[in-house]
């Protein structure tokens, strides 16, 4: 979740901010189903969350059977070195773009707890919508929205436009990585239909807004901890080894590259789904996004897991999302993960409910987590290797 780093960010001088002018509706009219995953307890995961951020978020119970998603959720949220002033806005805008009520509500809440008035947050959203924002921020927001939508993905011209307003290559890569992080959060928040009501209610209710003062004191340490590099990420992790090593080594100059490496390794090692199913999920999502380098990597991983998946078999499998070689679980998972690329929340959540009925809770969680990770990885790859 976002860590509240916006106090330095200013709206454009042409867009004076007065509370009476601010008319940005929330996402509360977006259809949102009840949570799809089961609530279970995992005290180890609860202690981990407490150790990492000083508290245990309520949604920990939904992720209890798939701890790596929680690790990814908390460990990806670390301060960047190049775009530190933009992270909260990226979180807000991409979450809005993906209609993720859970993340959008949380973004508002965290920004308010961090000290930004609601009126200013609304004004920022409105300024981005109406392009009344300073060029550096405007171009960055265009770039991150292109990554998020991938219709079409960013091009070399977008990189040039960013360089023209002062972003160097490292900053562009960091924009891509952080947008990928938000896409990951949005995907698992939406696909699991995590309950957004608590954050939305606190944002809306005048009485509950009073809680922000004690919340700010209570979460002061949490916010501070989110800004530092987690200590338990092994800095000696080899970036080139493991699934999608080509991407983690391409991001080698960024401070968060080893977090991505660790999460990819953890996701691959998690026992809830076979590794070949994860490779298949990545291959389908890469095809849907046109991320050729990621599809190649997924095919290599698949062939390494099971030699029966020859080039011809995989061609046909990805083209039709079906093959006699697929297990029953895989046959129902692949048509679903294709839906996670671009979606309307209510529609994809209904499809998720149908899939949940045919899988165990742990397998469903891992499907959602892997699909979220694949959407993140493929979009980052498209953004840093533009056509």
């Amino acid at each position, binding site marked *: 979740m976002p860590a509240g780093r916006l106090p330095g960010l200013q709206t454009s001088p042409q867009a004076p901010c007065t509370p009476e002018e601010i*008319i940005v*509706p929330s996402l509360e009219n977006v259809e949102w189903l009840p949570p799809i995953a089961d609530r279970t307890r995992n005290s180890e995961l609860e202690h981990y969350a407490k150790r990492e951020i000083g508290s245990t978020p309520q949604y920990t119970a939904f992720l209890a059977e798939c701890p790596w998603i929680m690790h990814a959720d908390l460990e990806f949220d670390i301060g960047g070195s190049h775009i530190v002033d933009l992270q909260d806005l990226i979180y807000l805008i991409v979450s809005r773009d993906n209609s993720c009520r859970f993340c959008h509500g949380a973004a508002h809440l965290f920004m308010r707890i961090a000290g930004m008035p609601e009126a200013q947050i609304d004004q920022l959203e409105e300024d981005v919508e109406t392009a009344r924002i300073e060029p550096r921020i405007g171009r960055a927001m265009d770039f991150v929205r292109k990554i998020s939508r*991938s*219709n079409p993905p960013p091009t070399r011209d977008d990189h040039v436009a960013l360089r023209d307003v002062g972003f160097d290559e490292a900053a562009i890569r960091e924009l891509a990585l952080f947008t990928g992080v938000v896409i990951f959060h949005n995907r698992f928040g939406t696909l699991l239909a995590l309950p957004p009501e608590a954050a939305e209610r606190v944002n809306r209710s005048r009485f509950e807004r009073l809680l922000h003062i004690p919340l700010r004191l209570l979460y002061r340490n949490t916010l501070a901890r989110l800004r530092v590099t987690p200590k338990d990420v092994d800095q000696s992790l080899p970036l080139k080894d493991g699934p999608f090593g080509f991407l983690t080594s391409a991001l080698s100059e960024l401070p968060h590259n080893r977090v991505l490496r660790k999460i990819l390794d953890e996701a691959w090692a998690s026992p809830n789904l076979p590794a070949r199913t994860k490779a298949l999920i990545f291959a389908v999502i890469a095809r849907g996004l046109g991320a050729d380098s990621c599809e190649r990597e997924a095919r290599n991983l698949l062939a390494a897991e099971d030699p029966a998946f020859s080039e011809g078999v995989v061609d046909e499998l990805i*083209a*039709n999302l079906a093959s006699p070689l697929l297990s029953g679980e895989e046959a129902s998972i692949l048509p679903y993960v294709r839906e996670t690329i*671009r979606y309307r929340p209510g529609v994809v959540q209904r499809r998720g409910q149908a899939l949940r009925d045919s899988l165990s809770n742990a397998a469903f969680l891992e499907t959602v987590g892997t699909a979220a990770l694949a959407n993140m990885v493929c979009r980052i790859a498209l953004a840093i290797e533009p056509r």
Partner: protein
Amino acid sequence: MLLLAAVSLLMGLGFGFAWWRGRAQLVRVRTALRAKAGDLESLQLAFSRFAPEEIVERIIASGVSSQSERKQATVLFADLVGFTTISEHVEPDVLVRILNGYFERMSGAITEHRGHISTLIGDGILALFGALEPNPWQGNDAVHAALAMRGELAAYNRELDAEGLPTLSVGIGLHSGSGVSGLVGSRELMQFTLVGRVVNLAARVQDLTRQFEVDILLTRAVQQEIDKRFVLRELPPTRVRGIEEPVQIFAVEGFAENR
């Protein structure tokens, strides 16, 4: 002194009342504006089902533009067979009810398979797959949609028959290829659509359904892209108006899940 206090009190009350009324009015205006903004957002969301988000945003930011792009899409053209005859024998309000029921079911089948309806032309439907957003599975989606339309129409015909109303039959043509997508129309009426040979050929192939007495026909371009589990029957290459070479066409018989 007492008078001064009374006047002050009255003035205070007057100011207080004016402030309270002003504030109440402000709250009402803000609530109304917020509701309207919510409506606008819903409208924008609804528009994104008919045109890509970027086009909707461009319209909001700078008005209607003629910007267009070339896209690979699959076109589904559907037309009711013999509907003109039916329309001459049924009361107008019943006719409209029959037609609306038909469109309701067909649009459900199309959107369920990720297509979007570009235009309704009389009783005809032009639906596009892969035009709003890239879709590598567009061919399979379009043929599944056509089969779903067949199933929906059969169910609808049972309802019409039970009411003693005439039943419907449809001809569906499918073709895929490259076309130009964008906002097309006049100042009074605009729509996001695809134009080009791909659309014309889908319409011509739909015409051929009458000649071959089948309900779903697709071209070689679609056949090469789709799942081998679709059961197809190859028909003789046929000449169509406006196309030099005879067109290779296939009738769609069904989908064999376990093939």
